[in-house]
Protein backbone atom coordinates (compact mmCIF):
# COMPACT_ATOMS: atom_id res chain seq x y z
CA UNK A 1 0.00 0.00 0.00
CA UNK A 2 1.40 3.37 -1.03
CA UNK A 3 2.30 5.71 1.78
CA UNK A 4 -0.21 8.51 2.30
CA UNK A 5 0.95 12.06 1.62
CA UNK A 6 0.75 14.01 4.87
CA UNK A 7 -1.89 16.73 4.94
CA UNK A 8 0.61 18.97 6.72
CA UNK A 9 4.36 18.58 6.81
CA UNK A 10 6.37 21.22 8.63
CA UNK A 11 10.08 20.46 8.74
CA UNK A 12 12.49 22.26 11.07
CA UNK A 13 10.65 25.54 10.69
CA UNK A 14 12.57 28.57 11.88
CA UNK A 15 11.17 32.07 11.63
CA UNK A 16 13.14 35.15 12.62
CA UNK A 17 11.60 38.60 12.59
CA UNK A 18 13.72 41.68 12.09
CA UNK A 19 13.54 44.07 14.98
CA UNK A 20 14.86 47.58 15.19
CA UNK A 21 18.27 48.50 13.83
CA UNK A 22 21.29 46.68 15.32
CA UNK A 23 19.21 44.45 17.54
CA UNK A 24 19.19 40.69 17.35
CA UNK A 25 16.33 39.31 15.24
CA UNK A 26 13.45 37.87 17.19
CA UNK A 27 13.13 34.12 16.77
CA UNK A 28 9.40 33.41 16.83
CA UNK A 29 9.60 29.77 15.76
CA UNK A 30 12.66 27.63 16.45
CA UNK A 31 13.00 24.30 14.67
CA UNK A 32 9.37 23.19 14.81
CA UNK A 33 8.39 20.03 12.95
CA UNK A 34 4.79 18.86 12.62
CA UNK A 35 3.36 16.04 10.55
CA UNK A 36 -0.41 15.67 10.28
CA UNK A 37 -1.88 12.76 8.37
CA UNK A 38 -5.16 13.07 6.41
CA UNK A 39 -8.25 12.85 8.58
CA UNK A 40 -6.48 13.72 11.83
CA UNK A 41 -7.45 16.54 14.16
CA UNK A 42 -4.28 18.18 15.43
CA UNK A 43 -4.24 20.73 18.24
CA UNK A 44 -1.33 23.11 18.71
CA UNK A 45 -1.33 24.65 22.13
CA UNK A 46 0.94 27.16 23.76
CA UNK A 47 0.91 30.43 25.68
CA UNK A 48 0.51 33.80 23.98
CA UNK A 49 3.52 34.69 21.85
CA UNK A 50 4.82 31.13 21.73
CA UNK A 51 4.78 30.96 17.92
CA UNK A 52 1.48 29.20 17.20
CA UNK A 53 0.08 31.82 14.84
CA UNK A 54 3.44 32.30 13.10
CA UNK A 55 3.59 28.54 12.46
CA UNK A 56 0.12 28.65 10.94
CA UNK A 57 0.96 31.72 8.85
CA UNK A 58 4.09 30.00 7.55
CA UNK A 59 1.97 27.02 6.60
CA UNK A 60 -0.36 29.34 4.67
CA UNK A 61 2.46 31.21 2.94
CA UNK A 62 1.61 34.45 4.73
CA UNK A 63 5.16 34.54 6.11
CA UNK A 64 8.22 32.98 4.49
CA UNK A 65 10.29 30.57 6.64
CA UNK A 66 13.79 31.77 7.59
CA UNK A 67 14.75 28.12 7.24
CA UNK A 68 12.91 24.83 7.03
CA UNK A 69 9.89 24.10 4.91
CA UNK A 70 6.11 23.74 5.04
CA UNK A 71 3.93 21.76 2.69
CA UNK A 72 0.25 20.99 2.32
CA UNK A 73 -0.61 17.65 0.72
CA UNK A 74 2.91 17.60 -0.69
CA UNK A 75 2.76 21.10 -2.20
CA UNK A 76 5.11 23.81 -0.97
CA UNK A 77 3.21 26.36 1.10
CA UNK A 78 4.83 29.24 -0.75
CA UNK A 79 3.11 28.08 -3.96
CA UNK A 80 -0.38 29.50 -4.51
CA UNK A 81 -1.87 26.20 -5.66
CA UNK A 82 -1.19 24.65 -2.21
CA UNK A 83 -4.05 26.85 -0.96
CA UNK A 84 -6.59 25.10 -3.18
CA UNK A 85 -6.96 22.44 -0.48
CA UNK A 86 -6.95 24.70 2.59
CA UNK A 87 -9.57 26.62 4.48
CA UNK A 88 -8.38 29.13 7.07
CA UNK A 89 -10.14 30.87 9.93
CA UNK A 90 -7.87 33.50 11.51
CA UNK A 91 -8.06 34.57 15.13
CA UNK A 92 -10.74 37.24 15.69
CA UNK A 93 -11.62 37.56 12.02
CA UNK A 94 -13.33 40.64 10.65
CA UNK A 95 -14.98 40.21 7.33
CA UNK A 96 -16.15 42.96 5.03
CA UNK A 97 -18.83 44.71 7.04
CA UNK A 98 -20.64 45.97 3.96
CA UNK A 99 -21.40 42.43 2.76
CA UNK A 100 -24.17 40.17 4.01
CA UNK A 101 -23.41 36.66 5.23
CA UNK A 102 -24.48 35.10 1.92
CA UNK A 103 -22.54 37.71 -0.10
CA UNK A 104 -19.44 36.97 1.98
CA UNK A 105 -19.60 33.27 1.16
CA UNK A 106 -20.27 34.02 -2.52
CA UNK A 107 -17.24 36.34 -2.60
CA UNK A 108 -14.88 33.73 -1.12
CA UNK A 109 -16.41 31.02 -3.32
CA UNK A 110 -15.75 33.10 -6.44
CA UNK A 111 -12.16 33.65 -5.33
CA UNK A 112 -11.80 29.87 -5.37
CA UNK A 113 -13.16 29.71 -8.90
CA UNK A 114 -16.69 28.58 -8.03
CA UNK A 115 -19.72 30.07 -9.70
CA UNK A 116 -23.24 29.64 -10.99
CA UNK A 117 -25.69 27.18 -9.50
CA UNK A 118 -22.93 25.16 -7.85
CA UNK A 119 -21.88 28.18 -5.81
CA UNK A 120 -25.47 29.07 -4.91
CA UNK A 121 -26.04 25.52 -3.69
CA UNK A 122 -22.76 25.49 -1.78
CA UNK A 123 -23.57 28.81 -0.05
CA UNK A 124 -27.00 27.51 1.01
CA UNK A 125 -25.44 24.28 2.27
CA UNK A 126 -22.82 26.11 4.32
CA UNK A 127 -25.32 28.57 5.79
CA UNK A 128 -27.36 25.58 6.96
CA UNK A 129 -24.25 23.87 8.33
CA UNK A 130 -23.27 26.86 10.49
CA UNK A 131 -26.88 27.65 11.36
CA UNK A 132 -26.91 31.14 9.85
CA UNK A 133 -29.72 30.73 7.33
CA UNK A 134 -31.88 33.33 9.06
CA UNK A 135 -29.04 35.87 9.19
CA UNK A 136 -27.82 35.32 5.62
CA UNK A 137 -29.18 38.64 4.33
CA UNK A 138 -27.95 40.69 7.26
CA UNK A 139 -24.76 42.69 6.89
CA UNK A 140 -21.74 41.23 8.67
CA UNK A 141 -21.35 44.52 10.56
CA UNK A 142 -24.37 43.50 12.65
CA UNK A 143 -23.16 39.97 13.46
CA UNK A 144 -22.29 38.86 17.00
CA UNK A 145 -18.87 37.41 17.81
CA UNK A 146 -20.16 33.84 17.64
CA UNK A 147 -21.88 34.47 14.32
CA UNK A 148 -18.66 35.96 12.93
CA UNK A 149 -16.75 32.86 13.92
CA UNK A 150 -19.36 30.63 12.30
CA UNK A 151 -19.46 32.60 9.04
CA UNK A 152 -15.65 32.51 9.18
CA UNK A 153 -15.74 28.75 9.45
CA UNK A 154 -18.21 28.60 6.56
CA UNK A 155 -15.92 30.71 4.32
CA UNK A 156 -13.02 28.43 5.25
CA UNK A 157 -15.03 25.47 3.96
CA UNK A 158 -16.41 27.08 0.82
CA UNK A 159 -14.22 25.26 -1.72
CA UNK A 160 -14.52 21.94 0.17
CA UNK A 161 -10.91 21.88 1.33
CA UNK A 162 -9.27 18.71 2.61
CA UNK A 163 -7.49 20.68 5.34
CA UNK A 164 -8.98 23.29 7.66
CA UNK A 165 -6.73 25.54 9.76
CA UNK A 166 -8.42 27.19 12.72
CA UNK A 167 -6.60 29.82 14.78
CA UNK A 168 -8.37 30.19 18.14
CA UNK A 169 -11.77 29.30 16.70
CA UNK A 170 -13.61 29.88 19.97
CA UNK A 171 -11.78 33.01 21.17
CA UNK A 172 -14.28 35.39 22.74
CA UNK A 173 -17.26 33.18 21.93
CA UNK A 174 -19.85 32.37 24.62
CA UNK A 175 -20.22 28.74 25.83
CA UNK A 176 -23.13 28.00 23.47
CA UNK A 177 -21.29 29.39 20.45
CA UNK A 178 -18.18 27.57 21.55
CA UNK A 179 -20.09 24.27 21.72
CA UNK A 180 -21.52 24.88 18.23
CA UNK A 181 -18.02 25.33 16.85
CA UNK A 182 -16.85 22.21 18.67
CA UNK A 183 -19.73 20.27 17.09
CA UNK A 184 -18.74 21.61 13.68
CA UNK A 185 -15.20 20.34 14.21
CA UNK A 186 -16.66 16.92 15.04
CA UNK A 187 -18.62 17.06 11.79
CA UNK A 188 -15.46 17.91 9.86
CA UNK A 189 -13.71 14.93 11.40
CA UNK A 190 -16.65 12.67 10.52
CA UNK A 191 -16.26 13.78 6.89
CA UNK A 192 -12.57 12.94 6.90
CA UNK A 193 -11.38 16.56 6.77
CA UNK A 194 -8.03 17.20 8.40
CA UNK A 195 -8.18 19.88 11.08
CA UNK A 196 -5.21 21.85 12.38
CA UNK A 197 -6.26 24.09 15.23
CA UNK A 198 -4.69 26.13 17.95
CA UNK A 199 -6.63 27.11 20.98
CA UNK A 200 -6.31 28.28 24.54
CA UNK A 201 -9.32 26.20 25.53
CA UNK A 202 -7.46 23.08 26.52
CA UNK A 203 -10.58 21.21 27.57
CA UNK A 204 -11.91 21.67 24.06
CA UNK A 205 -8.64 20.60 22.46
CA UNK A 206 -8.69 17.49 24.64
CA UNK A 207 -12.22 16.80 23.51
CA UNK A 208 -11.70 17.07 19.76
CA UNK A 209 -8.04 16.38 18.97
CA UNK A 210 -6.30 13.12 18.10
CA UNK A 211 -2.81 14.60 18.13
CA UNK A 212 -1.48 17.44 20.22
CA UNK A 213 1.67 19.56 20.13
CA UNK A 214 2.76 21.91 22.86
CA UNK A 215 4.80 24.86 21.70
CA UNK A 216 6.65 27.09 24.13
CA UNK A 217 8.97 30.01 23.30
CA UNK A 218 9.02 28.92 19.69
CA UNK A 219 10.06 25.33 20.38
CA UNK A 220 7.95 22.19 20.30
CA UNK A 221 8.24 20.81 23.82
CA UNK A 222 5.88 17.82 23.56
CA UNK A 223 4.05 16.20 20.71
CA UNK A 224 2.15 13.00 20.13
CA UNK A 225 -1.14 11.17 20.36
CA UNK A 226 -3.38 12.79 22.92
CA UNK A 227 -4.10 9.46 24.63
CA UNK A 228 -0.38 8.83 25.07
CA UNK A 229 0.45 12.32 26.21
CA UNK A 230 -2.10 12.49 28.97
CA UNK A 231 -1.34 8.98 30.25
CA UNK A 232 0.38 8.92 33.65
CA UNK A 233 3.30 6.65 33.13
CA UNK A 234 3.98 5.60 36.70
CA UNK A 235 0.42 4.46 37.45
CA UNK A 236 -1.77 1.63 36.17
CA UNK A 237 -5.52 1.72 35.85
CA UNK A 238 -7.67 -1.39 36.07
CA UNK A 239 -11.33 -1.19 35.14
CA UNK A 240 -13.59 -3.98 36.35
CA UNK A 241 -17.14 -4.79 35.47
CA UNK A 242 -19.63 -5.40 38.31
CA UNK A 243 -16.87 -5.77 40.81
CA UNK A 244 -18.09 -7.02 44.18
CA UNK A 245 -16.46 -5.68 47.34
CA UNK A 246 -14.86 -9.09 47.83
CA UNK A 247 -13.39 -8.99 44.38
CA UNK A 248 -12.07 -5.47 44.88
CA UNK A 249 -10.45 -6.70 48.06
CA UNK A 250 -8.64 -9.37 46.09
CA UNK A 251 -7.54 -7.08 43.21
CA UNK A 252 -4.04 -6.46 44.33
CA UNK A 253 -3.47 -10.18 44.67
CA UNK A 254 -5.43 -11.40 41.77
CA UNK A 255 -6.23 -9.51 38.51
CA UNK A 256 -8.47 -12.18 37.18
CA UNK A 257 -11.35 -13.10 34.92
CA UNK A 258 -13.35 -9.85 35.13
CA UNK A 259 -10.55 -7.66 33.91
CA UNK A 260 -11.86 -5.66 30.91
CA UNK A 261 -9.12 -3.18 30.18
CA UNK A 262 -5.85 -2.16 31.65
CA UNK A 263 -4.14 1.08 30.84
CA UNK A 264 -3.00 4.35 32.25
CA UNK A 265 -5.25 6.71 34.16
CA UNK A 266 -5.46 10.08 32.47
CA UNK A 267 -4.44 13.47 33.63
CA UNK A 268 -5.98 16.46 31.94
CA UNK A 269 -4.44 18.28 29.02
CA UNK A 270 -4.54 21.44 31.11
CA UNK A 271 -2.30 19.87 33.78
CA UNK A 272 0.08 18.58 31.14
CA UNK A 273 0.21 22.00 29.52
CA UNK A 274 1.01 23.77 32.79
CA UNK A 275 3.65 21.20 33.64
CA UNK A 276 5.35 21.53 30.26
CA UNK A 277 5.25 25.30 30.03
CA UNK A 278 5.54 26.51 33.61
CA UNK A 279 6.96 23.42 35.28
CA UNK A 280 3.91 23.47 37.50
CA UNK A 281 3.04 19.95 38.70
CA UNK A 282 0.02 20.78 40.82
Amino acid sequence: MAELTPAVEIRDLVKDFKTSFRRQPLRAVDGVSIRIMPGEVYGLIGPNGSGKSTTMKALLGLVAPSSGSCSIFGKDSLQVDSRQDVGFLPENPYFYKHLTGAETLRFYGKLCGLGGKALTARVAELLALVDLEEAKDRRIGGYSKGMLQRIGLAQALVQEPRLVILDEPTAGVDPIGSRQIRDLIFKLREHGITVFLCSHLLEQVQEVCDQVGIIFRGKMVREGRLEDLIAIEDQTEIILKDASPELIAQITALAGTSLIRTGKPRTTLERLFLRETLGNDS
Partner: protein
Amino acid sequence: MTSSAAKPKDSHVLRILVIARHAFTQLVRMKVFYFLAIFAVIVIASNFFDLPQHEGPEAVGVNVLRSIKSWSLGTMTLFSVVLSIVATALLLPKDVEDRTLYTILAKPVPRFDYLAGKLLGVLFLVFVSMALMDLLMTLVLQIRTSAVLQQQIHMGQQLGWGPEEIARLKQETLAQGSTWSLQAGVLAVFIRSSIIAALALLISTFSTSTLFTTIISFLVYFIGHFQADVRDAFLHSESGGQGPVARAFALLLSLLLPDFSLFNVIDSVIEGQIFPLPMLEKLMALGLFYAVLYTVCSWFIFAKKEF
Protein backbone atom coordinates in the same frame (compact mmCIF):
# COMPACT_ATOMS: atom_id res chain seq x y z
CA MET B 1 -21.00 18.66 3.38
CA THR B 2 -21.94 17.06 0.14
CA SER B 3 -19.87 17.44 -2.93
CA SER B 4 -22.10 19.97 -4.62
CA ALA B 5 -19.42 22.34 -5.89
CA ALA B 6 -18.41 22.00 -9.50
CA LYS B 7 -14.79 21.90 -10.61
CA PRO B 8 -13.37 25.33 -9.88
CA LYS B 9 -12.24 27.52 -12.75
CA ASP B 10 -8.68 28.71 -12.29
CA SER B 11 -8.58 32.01 -14.14
CA HIS B 12 -6.55 35.08 -13.21
CA VAL B 13 -8.85 37.37 -15.14
CA LEU B 14 -11.99 36.08 -13.40
CA ARG B 15 -10.36 36.39 -9.99
CA ILE B 16 -9.15 39.93 -10.69
CA LEU B 17 -12.65 40.86 -11.81
CA VAL B 18 -14.16 39.34 -8.63
CA ILE B 19 -11.81 41.42 -6.46
CA ALA B 20 -12.36 44.52 -8.61
CA ARG B 21 -16.12 44.19 -8.38
CA HIS B 22 -15.86 43.71 -4.65
CA ALA B 23 -13.62 46.78 -4.20
CA PHE B 24 -16.08 48.80 -6.28
CA THR B 25 -19.05 47.61 -4.16
CA GLN B 26 -17.11 48.33 -0.99
CA LEU B 27 -16.41 51.92 -2.04
CA VAL B 28 -19.95 52.47 -3.30
CA ARG B 29 -21.35 51.25 0.03
CA MET B 30 -18.99 53.70 1.75
CA LYS B 31 -21.23 56.32 0.09
CA VAL B 32 -18.51 57.90 -2.05
CA PHE B 33 -21.05 58.86 -4.70
CA TYR B 34 -22.43 61.55 -2.42
CA PHE B 35 -19.86 63.91 -3.91
CA LEU B 36 -21.84 63.82 -7.15
CA ALA B 37 -24.44 66.00 -5.44
CA ILE B 38 -21.68 68.57 -4.75
CA PHE B 39 -20.62 68.34 -8.40
CA ALA B 40 -24.19 68.96 -9.54
CA VAL B 41 -24.36 72.09 -7.37
CA ILE B 42 -21.02 73.34 -8.79
CA VAL B 43 -22.07 72.76 -12.42
CA ILE B 44 -25.41 74.51 -11.89
CA ALA B 45 -23.71 77.35 -10.01
CA SER B 46 -21.17 77.77 -12.84
CA ASN B 47 -24.13 78.81 -15.04
CA PHE B 48 -24.33 82.05 -13.15
CA PHE B 49 -20.69 83.09 -13.52
CA ASP B 50 -21.39 85.08 -16.66
CA LEU B 51 -19.61 88.41 -16.81
CA PRO B 52 -21.41 91.23 -18.66
CA GLN B 53 -20.38 91.55 -22.30
CA HIS B 54 -19.91 94.79 -24.22
CA GLU B 55 -18.66 93.31 -27.48
CA GLY B 56 -20.32 91.86 -30.53
CA PRO B 57 -22.86 88.98 -30.61
CA GLU B 58 -20.04 86.39 -30.94
CA ALA B 59 -18.97 87.13 -27.35
CA VAL B 60 -22.42 86.93 -25.79
CA GLY B 61 -22.70 83.96 -23.40
CA VAL B 62 -19.38 82.40 -24.45
CA ASN B 63 -17.88 83.11 -21.06
CA VAL B 64 -20.60 81.14 -19.33
CA LEU B 65 -19.86 78.12 -21.55
CA ARG B 66 -16.17 78.37 -20.67
CA SER B 67 -17.10 78.77 -17.03
CA ILE B 68 -19.20 75.58 -17.09
CA LYS B 69 -16.34 73.66 -18.75
CA SER B 70 -13.70 75.12 -16.50
CA TRP B 71 -15.58 74.45 -13.27
CA SER B 72 -16.68 71.00 -14.40
CA LEU B 73 -13.23 69.82 -15.50
CA GLY B 74 -11.65 71.40 -12.43
CA THR B 75 -14.07 69.62 -10.12
CA MET B 76 -13.62 66.37 -12.07
CA THR B 77 -9.85 66.68 -11.63
CA LEU B 78 -10.19 67.36 -7.92
CA PHE B 79 -12.65 64.53 -7.27
CA SER B 80 -10.88 62.00 -9.47
CA VAL B 81 -7.45 62.68 -7.95
CA VAL B 82 -8.78 62.70 -4.37
CA LEU B 83 -10.84 59.58 -4.98
CA SER B 84 -7.96 57.74 -6.66
CA ILE B 85 -5.52 58.51 -3.88
CA VAL B 86 -7.78 58.15 -0.84
CA ALA B 87 -9.66 55.04 -2.02
CA THR B 88 -6.46 53.24 -3.02
CA ALA B 89 -4.62 54.30 0.13
CA LEU B 90 -7.53 53.09 2.25
CA LEU B 91 -8.23 49.64 0.79
CA LEU B 92 -4.95 47.81 1.42
CA PRO B 93 -4.20 48.89 5.02
CA LYS B 94 -7.84 48.30 5.94
CA ASP B 95 -7.65 44.69 4.74
CA VAL B 96 -4.44 44.15 6.71
CA GLU B 97 -5.82 45.79 9.84
CA ASP B 98 -9.09 43.85 9.73
CA ARG B 99 -7.24 40.61 8.85
CA THR B 100 -9.54 40.11 5.89
CA LEU B 101 -6.37 39.95 3.82
CA TYR B 102 -5.42 36.70 5.61
CA THR B 103 -8.64 35.05 4.55
CA ILE B 104 -8.18 36.21 0.95
CA LEU B 105 -4.52 35.23 0.60
CA ALA B 106 -5.26 31.91 2.34
CA LYS B 107 -7.42 31.12 -0.71
CA PRO B 108 -5.71 30.25 -4.00
CA VAL B 109 -5.36 33.95 -4.85
CA PRO B 110 -2.01 35.11 -6.28
CA ARG B 111 -0.89 38.38 -4.76
CA PHE B 112 -0.76 40.04 -8.18
CA ASP B 113 -4.45 39.21 -8.73
CA TYR B 114 -5.32 40.82 -5.41
CA LEU B 115 -3.42 44.04 -6.21
CA ALA B 116 -4.64 44.27 -9.78
CA GLY B 117 -8.23 43.64 -8.61
CA LYS B 118 -8.08 46.40 -6.01
CA LEU B 119 -6.62 48.88 -8.51
CA LEU B 120 -9.15 47.95 -11.15
CA GLY B 121 -11.99 48.39 -8.62
CA VAL B 122 -10.83 51.92 -7.77
CA LEU B 123 -10.38 52.77 -11.46
CA PHE B 124 -13.84 51.47 -12.24
CA LEU B 125 -15.27 53.64 -9.49
CA VAL B 126 -13.42 56.71 -10.81
CA PHE B 127 -14.58 55.87 -14.34
CA VAL B 128 -18.24 55.54 -13.32
CA SER B 129 -18.01 58.76 -11.27
CA MET B 130 -16.46 60.63 -14.17
CA ALA B 131 -18.97 59.22 -16.63
CA LEU B 132 -21.81 60.50 -14.44
CA MET B 133 -20.12 63.90 -14.03
CA ASP B 134 -19.46 64.06 -17.77
CA LEU B 135 -23.10 63.26 -18.47
CA LEU B 136 -24.28 66.06 -16.22
CA MET B 137 -21.75 68.53 -17.65
CA THR B 138 -22.70 67.63 -21.24
CA LEU B 139 -26.39 67.99 -20.45
CA VAL B 140 -25.97 71.40 -18.84
CA LEU B 141 -23.61 72.50 -21.62
CA GLN B 142 -26.02 71.40 -24.36
CA ILE B 143 -28.94 73.29 -22.83
CA ARG B 144 -26.85 76.38 -22.23
CA THR B 145 -25.21 76.29 -25.69
CA SER B 146 -28.53 76.23 -27.49
CA ALA B 147 -29.74 79.14 -25.32
CA VAL B 148 -26.57 81.12 -26.05
CA LEU B 149 -26.85 80.32 -29.75
CA GLN B 150 -30.42 81.59 -29.92
CA GLN B 151 -29.37 84.78 -28.18
CA GLN B 152 -26.44 85.30 -30.54
CA ILE B 153 -28.43 84.62 -33.69
CA HIS B 154 -31.10 87.03 -32.53
CA MET B 155 -28.47 89.72 -31.91
CA GLY B 156 -26.74 89.03 -35.20
CA GLN B 157 -29.99 89.33 -37.11
CA GLN B 158 -30.72 92.60 -35.35
CA LEU B 159 -27.32 93.87 -36.48
CA GLY B 160 -28.11 92.80 -40.02
CA TRP B 161 -25.60 89.96 -40.36
CA GLY B 162 -25.83 87.75 -43.41
CA PRO B 163 -26.45 83.95 -43.40
CA GLU B 164 -22.75 83.20 -43.91
CA GLU B 165 -21.71 85.30 -40.96
CA ILE B 166 -24.42 83.74 -38.80
CA ALA B 167 -23.33 80.23 -39.86
CA ARG B 168 -19.73 81.05 -38.88
CA LEU B 169 -20.97 82.45 -35.58
CA LYS B 170 -22.92 79.26 -34.97
CA GLN B 171 -19.87 77.12 -35.73
CA GLU B 172 -17.67 79.13 -33.38
CA THR B 173 -20.20 78.93 -30.56
CA LEU B 174 -20.73 75.20 -31.00
CA ALA B 175 -16.94 74.77 -30.65
CA GLN B 176 -17.31 76.22 -27.15
CA GLY B 177 -20.02 73.70 -26.25
CA SER B 178 -19.88 69.94 -25.83
CA THR B 179 -17.41 68.66 -28.41
CA TRP B 180 -15.40 65.51 -28.99
CA SER B 181 -12.35 67.48 -27.88
CA LEU B 182 -14.06 68.13 -24.57
CA GLN B 183 -14.75 64.41 -24.21
CA ALA B 184 -11.07 63.75 -24.95
CA GLY B 185 -10.27 66.25 -22.19
CA VAL B 186 -12.44 64.26 -19.75
CA LEU B 187 -10.64 61.09 -20.85
CA ALA B 188 -7.31 62.82 -20.16
CA VAL B 189 -8.50 63.64 -16.63
CA PHE B 190 -9.32 59.95 -16.17
CA ILE B 191 -5.91 58.86 -17.50
CA ARG B 192 -4.20 61.20 -15.06
CA SER B 193 -6.19 59.83 -12.11
CA SER B 194 -5.38 56.25 -13.23
CA ILE B 195 -1.66 57.05 -12.99
CA ILE B 196 -2.19 58.57 -9.55
CA ALA B 197 -4.21 55.53 -8.36
CA ALA B 198 -1.46 53.14 -9.50
CA LEU B 199 1.10 55.32 -7.75
CA ALA B 200 -0.96 55.31 -4.51
CA LEU B 201 -1.15 51.52 -4.79
CA LEU B 202 2.64 51.32 -5.05
CA ILE B 203 3.14 53.57 -2.03
CA SER B 204 0.56 51.69 0.04
CA THR B 205 2.46 48.41 -0.44
CA PHE B 206 5.35 49.68 1.71
CA SER B 207 3.65 52.45 3.65
CA THR B 208 2.73 51.96 7.28
CA SER B 209 -0.30 54.24 7.28
CA THR B 210 -3.07 55.56 5.08
CA LEU B 211 -2.03 59.13 5.95
CA PHE B 212 1.53 58.57 4.73
CA THR B 213 0.30 57.09 1.44
CA THR B 214 -2.12 59.98 0.91
CA ILE B 215 0.43 62.71 1.63
CA ILE B 216 3.19 61.17 -0.50
CA SER B 217 0.80 60.54 -3.39
CA PHE B 218 -0.37 64.17 -3.39
CA LEU B 219 3.23 65.30 -3.17
CA VAL B 220 4.23 63.23 -6.20
CA TYR B 221 1.18 64.54 -8.03
CA PHE B 222 2.33 68.12 -7.51
CA ILE B 223 5.98 67.30 -8.26
CA GLY B 224 4.80 65.65 -11.49
CA HIS B 225 3.65 69.06 -12.74
CA PHE B 226 7.20 70.41 -12.43
CA GLN B 227 8.97 67.26 -13.50
CA ALA B 228 9.63 68.55 -17.02
CA ASP B 229 11.20 71.77 -15.70
CA VAL B 230 13.46 69.87 -13.31
CA ARG B 231 14.47 67.42 -16.02
CA ASP B 232 15.29 70.22 -18.45
CA ALA B 233 17.28 72.07 -15.79
CA PHE B 234 19.41 68.97 -15.27
CA LEU B 235 19.79 67.90 -18.88
CA HIS B 236 20.11 71.20 -20.71
CA SER B 237 21.91 73.32 -18.15
CA GLU B 238 24.52 75.59 -19.70
CA SER B 239 26.56 75.86 -16.53
CA GLY B 240 28.46 72.78 -17.55
CA GLY B 241 28.54 71.61 -13.98
CA GLN B 242 26.13 68.75 -14.56
CA GLY B 243 28.02 65.48 -14.51
CA PRO B 244 26.88 62.08 -15.73
CA VAL B 245 25.48 61.26 -12.27
CA ALA B 246 23.18 64.28 -12.32
CA ARG B 247 22.08 63.44 -15.85
CA ALA B 248 21.39 59.84 -14.90
CA PHE B 249 19.43 61.10 -11.89
CA ALA B 250 17.41 63.39 -14.13
CA LEU B 251 16.66 60.57 -16.53
CA LEU B 252 15.68 58.24 -13.71
CA LEU B 253 13.46 60.92 -12.21
CA SER B 254 11.74 61.54 -15.52
CA LEU B 255 11.23 57.80 -15.95
CA LEU B 256 9.87 57.14 -12.47
CA LEU B 257 7.73 60.26 -12.16
CA PRO B 258 5.17 61.04 -14.84
CA ASP B 259 5.25 64.40 -16.56
CA PHE B 260 1.85 65.76 -15.59
CA SER B 261 2.49 69.05 -17.43
CA LEU B 262 1.54 67.15 -20.60
CA PHE B 263 -2.01 67.18 -19.29
CA ASN B 264 -2.11 70.99 -19.48
CA VAL B 265 -3.66 70.40 -22.89
CA ILE B 266 -6.93 70.12 -20.97
CA ASP B 267 -6.80 73.89 -20.38
CA SER B 268 -6.76 74.59 -24.12
CA VAL B 269 -9.85 72.39 -24.50
CA ILE B 270 -11.64 74.66 -22.04
CA GLU B 271 -10.71 77.57 -24.32
CA GLY B 272 -12.51 75.79 -27.15
CA GLN B 273 -9.45 74.50 -29.00
CA ILE B 274 -9.26 71.09 -30.63
CA PHE B 275 -7.65 68.23 -28.67
CA PRO B 276 -5.05 66.81 -31.10
CA LEU B 277 -5.48 63.07 -31.61
CA PRO B 278 -1.73 62.33 -31.45
CA MET B 279 -1.66 64.07 -28.07
CA LEU B 280 -4.51 61.88 -26.82
CA GLU B 281 -2.67 58.78 -28.06
CA LYS B 282 0.49 59.97 -26.30
CA LEU B 283 -1.40 60.50 -23.04
CA MET B 284 -3.02 57.06 -23.31
CA ALA B 285 0.37 55.44 -23.87
CA LEU B 286 1.81 57.40 -20.96
CA GLY B 287 -1.08 56.36 -18.69
CA LEU B 288 -0.77 52.72 -19.64
CA PHE B 289 3.01 52.76 -19.18
CA TYR B 290 2.88 54.24 -15.68
CA ALA B 291 -0.15 52.21 -14.54
CA VAL B 292 1.63 48.99 -15.59
CA LEU B 293 5.03 50.13 -14.23
CA TYR B 294 3.63 51.08 -10.82
CA THR B 295 1.46 47.93 -10.59
CA VAL B 296 4.40 45.66 -11.42
CA CYS B 297 6.60 47.48 -8.85
CA SER B 298 3.76 47.13 -6.29
CA TRP B 299 3.65 43.41 -7.02
CA PHE B 300 7.41 43.01 -6.48
CA ILE B 301 7.11 44.61 -3.05
CA PHE B 302 3.80 42.97 -2.09
CA ALA B 303 4.97 39.50 -3.13
CA LYS B 304 7.73 39.63 -0.50
CA LYS B 305 5.56 41.19 2.17
CA GLU B 306 4.81 39.20 5.34
CA PHE B 307 1.61 39.48 7.33
